[in-house]
């Protein structure tokens, strides 16, 4: 753990080159996408609806088999997205998730802890932060969309994987929870790398070290440090109402 913390942000964690992905082979959703995630950074992936954000996360998660890629490495070593050795290192919170409906949040978090063979951290603190106390022992099927989202978000942050992937994490959350989520996202670099997709510009500008703009299946521009401001990114998206 200490070694992890001492890693500098400049080291490459995950590198993906020439990724094309599809649901229908004649219509590619991702086209020759390449990106690099560094150790202990927060990366925002922004794009309009249908740009391929969720598809990209599905490929990394190993859920989409329709893809081709020229290179994929984790800390310089080749990986397979479906191998447990890679899966151990990442957790994904999907934009919509109706799984484990007959588990309570506490059942689910125990299940995840068991699957990853890892301890969970700061669960009670996050339950308070998300105002989730009343719902921790309620079946997931009986929770509202926002509270279901909180259950999976708390699990992801409590697991502290080396890569935490969040697909549209802000969707469905109330104002207070959104603010709390921003603080969790911004602070995650202490534990690992976080990549999240969003089409809400504020969520990206307030939390990210790096912003990638995904358009028509590939990364069209990247912003870092002072470049990360709403006006510049809006201009890059060529869309005024983000």
């Amino acid at each position, binding site marked *: 753990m200490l070694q992890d913390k001492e890693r500098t942000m400049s080291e490459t964690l995950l590198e993906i080159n020439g990724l094309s992905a*599809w*649901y*229908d082979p004649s*219509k590619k959703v991702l086209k020759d996408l390449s990106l690099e995630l560094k150790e202990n950074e927060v990366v925002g992936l922004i794009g309009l609806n249908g740009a391929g954000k969720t*598809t990209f996360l599905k490929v990394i*998660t*190993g*859920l*989409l*088999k*329709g893809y081709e890629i020229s290179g994929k490495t984790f800390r310089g070593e080749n990986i397979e997205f*479906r191998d*447990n050795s890679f*899966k*151990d290192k990442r*957790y*994904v919170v*999907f934009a919509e*998730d*109706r*799984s*484990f*409906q*007959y*588990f309570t949040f506490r059942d689910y978090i*125990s*299940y*995840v802890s*068991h*699957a*990853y063979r890892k301890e969970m951290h700061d669960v009670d603190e996050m339950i308070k932060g998300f105002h989730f106390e009343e719902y921790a022992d309620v*079946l997931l099927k009986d929770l509202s969309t926002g509270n279901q989202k909180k259950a*999976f978000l708390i699990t992801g942050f409590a697991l502290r994987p080396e890569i935490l992937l969040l697909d549209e994490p802000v969707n469905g959350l109330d104002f207070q929870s959104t603010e709390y989520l921003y603080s969790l996202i911004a602070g995650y670099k202490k534990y690992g790398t976080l990549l999240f997709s969003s089409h809400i510009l504020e969520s990206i500008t307030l939390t990210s070290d790096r912003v990638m703009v995904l358009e028509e299946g590939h990364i069209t521009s990247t912003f870092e440090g002072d470049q990360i401001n709403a006006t510049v990114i809006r201009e890059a998206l060529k869309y005024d109402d983000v």
Partner: protein
Amino acid sequence: MMFKAFAKKLFGLRYGRILRTVIICVIIYMGISSAGYEVAIAPRILYLMSAVVTAVMMWQGMTSSDTEDYIRNMMMMPFDRKAFLASYIGTLGIYVLLSKTLLVWALVFALTKFGLSVILCSLCAALCAVVMTGCFLAVRKRFLMITWIVAVIGSVFLIDKALIMICIFGVCILVSVLIFSGVDAYAFYDVFCNRGAGKSRVRGRKGGFVFTYLMRYMMTHKNYIINTMFMWAFGVAIPVFSFAVIGREDPEMSRMFVYLGYGLVVMNTPLCILVSCDPDLERGIRCLPKGGVSFFVPYGLFLFVNTCINCCPTRATGQAKDQ
């Protein structure tokens, strides 16, 4: 833990659905067998019924969008391949056997008395259908699998001895388990991958929206069409059974049995429970101005046409038996 996750989804929080189904089966069995009706059913028909009902329901379970939602998160996490396969196929198999096949057995065993070897053989046929359906979905070598299925069905028709059939089903189960040992668990998720491809544009309509919706609904859920076909087949089988059992003694009673049984069957087709099983659709309809009228009138007409088409073979069967 994985087994528990699947079991809770399929059987409910405290596995209450198992008890409910078993009680229904006991009531059906007791009710029909106490009436003293008897029908001669060949053992091979029993084996085929057990296998086909189980296989169709397994297929439906493994390809439903509900299952996709459920296994996606599980597959995202690290998991043990063997544990996943055993839990997934095992729980779904138990669910299908207890909730679907057992109902068929309750009905058939109440009408016909079989020896222990035939009962055991039908159980093996159903178990064989569970694992072979899993193999079919995971392996996707259609020619090989169809040849295998044809060989099994052929042996059911050619071989009379129940013990030999038990051995054949046993070998099929063993071969399926061996195949499973090399199967990638993701194969069960990959069946859903191409569903994203269905984002093709469709031509807009100027009218008949509800009919269009219902047709698209049926075409998207092809397993519902199969399910409805089975219900229709059941609708045809009921008059055959009722006329064979009580028709000669009491034609009026047998006719009533036909209408009652047929009504129950029709009410449970996926089309008939379209609104009640889709709360989002129901909410959407209620929110529309005059939503009730604009949706339910065409929906009722669609069901009426569907039921009329459905009635033809049932009525024809009933009339043939009357004569």
